[in-house]
């Protein structure tokens, strides 16, 4: 009889699922992973990674167009869209193979197919409608991720109305593009297509773009996008889409009731994601789901003993690094490893790779005040940093929010070049519970962008040196 019983079965091979499986195997468990499409999931194949590859292209292209600023000359700067997309796909392919290798190395048994619960502790795997395996396990972790949300009347058609899937493999470089939604996904695509020459309009239903970010940071980013030529309509929504010949016309209505029409070649719908809770056999167990996500407690336990849910399918923030960490905590809790604590959602950073980049962790200034903190806020602009000037990136801001009483770092928010690589410094600081004192005493290397982090902390206490 084939090996069909496992200590742990992970359903879903995205960043949450495969990391959880590897951690389970490291601890010594016999682990199986069931994945229907691609190891690495959306993140690696259709999300985080391939978009970073595209955005790298647009960044290099942007710099080539401004070569003269650096004393260089580049003539006839152009791009080959097919080659750009191919590079992005190759990056994903390479990492996808890497995940397969890592799972093999850790002796995780991978089943290709769709996993469904068939009562507690039982998982049926099917592929192309045929049963592949009947598995049993002491513990089952659901890590089935999320997919693009669709709004009625704005359904993607795969041709003129794209989701991130189609936008990652565009058939044409649209001369004009409407992006619905200004969250991380919408803004990244807007930034990519805009940089490559598309006339981009972003419509956001809320008054603020990048709605989860600090208001001041979002306003600075918006100013920068608009200066680069992007059109942004906030407090507005797309009420309908009318396909034409090789174009599509969107009806836009502002909060005040003003209506207008916009005809573009393509539309990207980026109005959020919803958990993949369907067709998982949840009804064969006591697992409950509500509003598109599986209900689980702080250690990812569902209402069914032995069944857990992690990552996007267990609710926001829907980020790969949250899913990975949640999965590791879940497995460690199951195996009784000492010192396991639930993830602190306030300490999960978020990064958006548009140009300029956005990165943040913790409470925004507004949220901190709302939560009852008396705050001290520090700000330091890129303009005051030597490295930023040398890089030719004088636009941006590093903002820090402290609790005035205890000196606890409540949040950090940045906009500007490379900030996505800087934010982890503040994440560590928050994780180790440093106060402003420790950060002030930390030596930051010169010349780096990270010096702005130091200066921002100093500024919160009226001590900034370079501004």
């Amino acid at each position, binding site marked *: 009889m084939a090996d069909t019983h496992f200590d742990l079965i992970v359903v879903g091979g995205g960043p949450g699922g495969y990391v959880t499986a590897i951690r389970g195997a490291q601890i010594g468990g016999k682990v199986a992973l069931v994945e229907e499409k691609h190891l690495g999931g959306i993140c690696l194949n259709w999300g985080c990674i391939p978009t970073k590859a595209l955005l790298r292209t647009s960044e290099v292209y942007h710099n080539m167009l401004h070569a003269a600023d650096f004393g260089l000359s580049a003539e006839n700067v152009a791009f080959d869209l097919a080659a750009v997309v191919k590079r992005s796909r190759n990056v994903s392919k390479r990492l996808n193979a890497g995940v397969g290798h890592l799972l093999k190395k850790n002796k995780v048994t991978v089943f290709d197919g769709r996993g469904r619960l068939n009562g507690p502790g039982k998982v049926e795997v099917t592929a192309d409608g045929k049963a592949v395996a009947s598995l049993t396990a002491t513990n089952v972790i659901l890590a089935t991720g999320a997919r693009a949300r669709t709004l009625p009347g704005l359904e993607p058609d795969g041709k003129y109305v794209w989701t991130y899937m189609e936008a990652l493999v565009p058939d044409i470089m649209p001369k004009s593009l409407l992006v619905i939604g200004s969250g991380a996904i919408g803004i990244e695509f807007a930034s990519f297509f805009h940089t490559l020459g598309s006339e981009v309009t972003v419509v956001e239903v809320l008054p603020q773009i990048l709605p989860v970010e600090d208001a001041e940071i979002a306003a600075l980013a918006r100013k920068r996008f608009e200066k680069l030529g992007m059109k942004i309509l906030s407090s507005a929504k797309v009420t309908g889409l009318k396909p034409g010949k090789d174009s599509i016309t969107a009806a836009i209505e502002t909060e005040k009731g003003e209506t207008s029409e916009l005809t573009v070649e393509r539309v990207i719908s980026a109005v959020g994601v919803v958990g993949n809770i369907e067709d998982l056999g949840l009804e064969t167990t006591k697992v409950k789901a509500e509003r598109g996500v599986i209900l689980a407690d702080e250690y990812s336990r569902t209402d069914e003993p032995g069944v857990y849910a992690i990552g996007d399918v267990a609710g926001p923030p829907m980020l790969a690094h949250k899913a990975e960490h949640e999965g590791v905590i879940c497995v460690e809790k199951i195996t009784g490893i000492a010192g396991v*604590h639930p993830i602190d959602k306030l300490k999960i950073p978020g990064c958006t790779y548009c140009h300029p980049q956005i990165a943040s962790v913790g409470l925004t200034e507004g949220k901190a005040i709302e939560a009852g903190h008396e705050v001290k806020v520090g700000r330091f602009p890129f303009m005051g940093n030597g490295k930023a000037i040398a890089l030719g990136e004088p636009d941006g801001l590093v903002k820090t929010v402290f609790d*005035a009483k205890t*000196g*606890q770092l409540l949040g950090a928010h940045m906009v500007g070049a490379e900030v996505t690589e800087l934010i982890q410094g503040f994440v560590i600081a928050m994780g*180790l519970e440093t*106060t402003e*004192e420790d950060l002030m005493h930390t030596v930051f290397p010169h010349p780096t962008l990270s010096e702005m982090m130091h200066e921002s902390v100093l500024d919160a206490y*009226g*001590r900034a040196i370079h501004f």
Partner: protein
Amino acid sequence: MPIQILMPALSPTMTEGTLAKWHVKEGDEISSGDVLAEIETDKATMEVESIDEGTVGKLLVAEGAEGVPVNQVIAVLLEEGEDASAIDASVGVAPPAAAEAPAAEAPPAATAAAAPAPAAAQAVAQAVDGARVFASPLARRMAAQSGLDIARVGGSGPHGRVVKRDIEAALAGAPLAAPAAAVAPAPAATVPTAAPAGPGPQQMADLLGMAYRLEPANNMRKTIARRLTEAKQTVPHFYLTVDCELDALLDQRKQLNARGAESGDYKLSVNDFVIRAVALALRQVPAANASWDQAGILYYEKADVSVAVATPNGLITPVIRDAGAKGLAAISGEMKDLAGRARDGKLKPEEYQGGGFSISNLGMFGVKDFAAIINPPQGCILAVGAGEPRPVVKDGALAVATVMSCTLSVDHRVVDGAVGAQFLAAFKRLVEEPLTMLL
């Protein structure tokens, strides 16, 4: 150069105290002898007087701050001609940005207020056997700000590190570990109180829905709790009881008080006689006037008698020094003064520290007989009950006499049964034949 005002050591054993009240505010002109602040220590509230004159530049410790270490700068005094800019240099605070107005919210005030915290935190964070306490910077600051001894907080972070959630749990009433360091030196090795197993009383009461009122323990109550737990757990107690007939003493007292009433000089209580009788009995049996120390037994040369006084905040034991050398009127007068100031919390440390033998009298409450807990490092405590008419056998016949039961609690390491009995016999003789107190 501004003058730094330090947290004073109000007694040789004081390591920290509570800044109970400021009597001055920033900007006040003060001269030598002015009262600056009230400091609350284990046992009493003391006033701190200025020895310098000048203007109060800055108060660095907030009113009510607990656990302020001795010698920490608590305020800065500006001498004539100095202005506020001199303060920062003197307390090592970086100057504020020029643009910032010196408003309450401006950096200098905030930094100054924050500055003492790390020092305080470091002081407590080295408590248990001097071992380092691992804690996050935020946890240290929160503990310092709330007067929590971080060494007593269990850590739940990596490798037992104390983190924010542990401080929050402790402040919300989670049980703390045993106190790490004794404030007052005890000659015997101190054994800390064991951490309560299972839920503490408050958690239990919450669980069971019992109604209660939580009264935070003041320093005095904490000291009582610590010292008496230590005494009962570490001192091998035994108890001897004797009945004393009081009729002769009461007669004497009546006669003496009649004279005292005429002159208005004194009004003697039975307790004054008991103090004198104890002092004289200790002279006769000096072996009972002793303390255990690891180095050996200390025999005290004078009879310094501690007398327990109930105060609104708890028990305190002012000392009648060399009571054997003092007459009844002197003892009586001194006792009234000490008891009065004890109730007001105004005793000086030297007035309640350093007795050799204690008396606890609950006679006035009608208690017949009880056994007291030894007041370390002393070797004995005499528990005095009420004088009441009781049947006694005299010459083979029943009779009525006023009888007072006294129970001596004895530290067996210092005083054996026979010595304790000799002391009680001497005491009984003195009480029953009060004229011998004249000898």
